[in-house]
């Protein structure tokens, strides 16, 4: 039975590693300028975690195979507890802190930098159970929000009052997030009701919408295409179907799109 | 050796403290119920227990405090209001009750050691303590009435919400202390008193702690309101 256990553990360990080594399951291709650091961090962590995982499982299996016996004297691991503790502290300590430090660098690259002065500002609003986006229009200013005016039946998702607020007049509200490629976007995130999250796998961005607290992210895309925006913070019964699309376009396409959207307001 | 789960244990009536194996001792109540037999071996377990319990209560109020601090900082809607003046009267009463309880505890100890044979004195002080505890709770209730009269309800403002929550939680814990006092009184006033020293001590630690906790809360309220 001990041998069966050993073989099973080792087979499970190797079997578990195969889909990873074969790249059967991988995140979709990155379209952001900050993503490569994350991807690199991911593969380094995968390597270290994978080696630790395989080593631990295989050694466990081998020891169980070898020491499930009734004869012989009780022996002790060479190096003893002290050696193991030293190994854990030094090897694992160094490993994880190195990961932590490099990871912190990748994190800092996204979160500790301010958006550039030319970043295009777009507001994203999350509500049960859809995202809506707002472009400031030609005046470059967002009209103020009046939560009491929100009426989804009349498509006033943000609670704008264009009759009284001149800045709101040219605001363009859309259901998809179109952005020009290679342009820095400063996304202002506003939650309408409960907590939501903005996750675009290809963009390597995941950020919660916090009710009562407006947060923002900034990013630059580098590939034209249409990508899914999904909600990753449980927000209610329609959570599974809360999504929108990120449409990365060439500047010309974007301009045309924006013009068309403006005509429909 | 016993073999079934429900066989009564072999009760050995000897309970000399030195057999209690140091820390593992259980306070044995003398079967004849003579309080003087209790002498001075209060239980380690109940002492540990009360400290652990107080640590948990402290943690709960620490959580309330941090909630208060975070909530006050999360929006600009914190309305400051003058604390109801009856609170200061309540504070004095509660502090005084701690003192009367301490007097009573010493008297119980003296009684237990045989220096004094009158049970009525510690009992009297205990009743005074109990009465003051009840006055405190009534006083807190009066404080709520005072706020209500000012139009400050539980949901009026975060400051009033926290006021009610903190005082109510404290009063609730204090009621537990009152229960402890009632237990002490009933055990002491039995024809053959069955009060254990550890029970007395535990009840008074708890009571003093309620006192300290109240002072802390008052300071917090005073600083934040």
């Amino acid at each position, binding site marked *: 039975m001990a041998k069966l256990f050993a073989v099973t553990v080792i087979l499970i360990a190797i079997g578990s590693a195969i889909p990873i080594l074969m790249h059967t399951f991988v995140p979709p291709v990155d379209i952001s300028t900050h993503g490569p650091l994350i991807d690199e961090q991911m593969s380094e962590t995968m390597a270290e975690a994978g080696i630790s995982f395989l080593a631990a499982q295989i050694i466990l299996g081998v020891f169980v195979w070898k020491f499930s016996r009734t004869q012989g004297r009780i022996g002790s691991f060479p190096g003893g507890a002290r050696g193991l503790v030293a190994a854990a502290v030094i090897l694992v300590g160094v490993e994880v802190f190195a990961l932590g430090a490099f990871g912190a660098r990748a994190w800092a690259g996204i979160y500790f930098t301010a958006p550039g002065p030319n970043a295009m500002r777009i507001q994203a609003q999350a*509500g*049960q*159970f*859809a995202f809506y986006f707002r472009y400031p229009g030609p005046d470059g200013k967002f009209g103020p929000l009046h939560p009491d005016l929100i009426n*989804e*039946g*009349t*498509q006033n*998702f943000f609670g704008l009052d264009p009759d009284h607020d001149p800045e709101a007049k040219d605001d363009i509200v*859309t*259901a*998809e997030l179109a952005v020009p490629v290679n342009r820095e976007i400063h996304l202002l995130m506003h939650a309408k009701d409960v907590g939501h999250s903005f996750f675009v796998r290809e963009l390597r961005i995941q950020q919660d919408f916090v009710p009562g607290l407006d947060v923002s992210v900034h990013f630059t895309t580098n590939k034209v295409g249409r990508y899914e925006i999904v909600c990753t913070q449980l927000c*209610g*019964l*329609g959570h599974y*179907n809360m*999504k*929108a*699309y990120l449409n990365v376009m060439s500047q010309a396409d974007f301009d045309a799109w924006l013009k068309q959207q403006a005509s*429909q*307001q | 050796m016993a073999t079934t789960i429900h066989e009564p244990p072999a009760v050995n009536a000897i309970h000399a403290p030195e057999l209690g194996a140091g820390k593992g001792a259980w306070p044995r109540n003398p079967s004849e119920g003579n309080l003087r037999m209790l002498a001075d071996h209060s239980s380690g377990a109940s002492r540990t227990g009360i400290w652990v319990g107080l640590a948990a209560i402290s943690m709960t109020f620490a959580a309330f405090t941090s909630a208060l601090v975070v909530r006050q900082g999360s929006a600009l809607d914190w309305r400051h209001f003058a604390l109801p003046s009856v609170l200061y009267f309540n504070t004095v009463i509660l502090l005084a009750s701690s003192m009367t309880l301490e007097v009573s505890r010493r008297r119980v100890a003296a009684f237990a050691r045989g220096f004094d044979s009158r049970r009525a004195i510690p009992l009297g002080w205990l009743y005074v303590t109990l009465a003051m505890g009840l006055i405190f709770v009534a006083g807190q209730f009066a404080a709520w009435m005072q706020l209500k009269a000012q139009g400050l309800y539980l949901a009026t403002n975060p400051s009033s919400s926290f006021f009610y929550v903190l005082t109510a939680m404290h009063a609730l814990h204090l009621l537990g202390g009152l229960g402890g006092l009632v237990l002490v009184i009933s055990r002491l006033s039995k024809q053959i008193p069955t009060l254990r020293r550890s029970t007395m001590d535990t009840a008074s630690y708890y009571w003093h702690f309620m006192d300290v906790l109240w002072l802390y809360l008052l300071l917090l309220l005073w600083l934040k309101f």
Partner: protein
Amino acid sequence: MTIRYKITAAFSALVLFALGALVLSTNVSAAGEGKITGTVKFTGTPPHERPIDMSKEPYCQKLHASNPVKTENVVVGPDGSLEWVVLYISEGLSGSAASAVSSEKPKWDQKGCQYIPHVMALDANQHFLVTNSDPTSHNIHPLPKAGGGNNQWNKSQPPGAPPIDTSWPGEEVAIQVKCNIHPWMHGYMAVVKGPNAVTDEKGAYTISGVPPGSYTVTAWQETLGTQTQKVTVAAGKPATADFTFKGK
């Protein structure tokens, strides 16, 4: 034996006859001669109806790809006719005409991420069926006002689920119905007492089953509010009441 049999038979016949008479009489008075008809018009500039972007639900988006759905707050025909106006008798009804509950079970369908119909008029306690014709889940979330006798509810209907059969106990004009999964979906259920109607795409309506008498007819439109008119229904002669809502 035979006598008892005959008595029983005679008694049964009597009971049946009485019952039949009762049923018929109420039918006669309710479904009777009287009718109120008319059309509802809109003058002025109709508000801009925005096209709805359904990209969140690809099925619905594809369905309406050639002809995007627009908001239905004020649906005005080319000749100024106003659709989706609820008409009901707000005053003057009495007796069985007021308390009669239509036995018809209207359908409130969710199709192509829209409510079909957009506005529905119902008697209090009249049963209706909520169905889902889409291959996606909708949640039906009517929002009656608190204290009006109706309770808010919120239920999802996955594709293939059986229809929801329910009714509203209290009168209310009108209960907004939402789908939170598709926030653009909204409609109204007007719960009234007695006969009622909703205008069609030509702005026309017919309230039938009105017993002769004098009444106040109320027209309700979701964004334009209400208007009333007094009408008199004579036996065998439909009364007419036309309404005109003014835009800004």
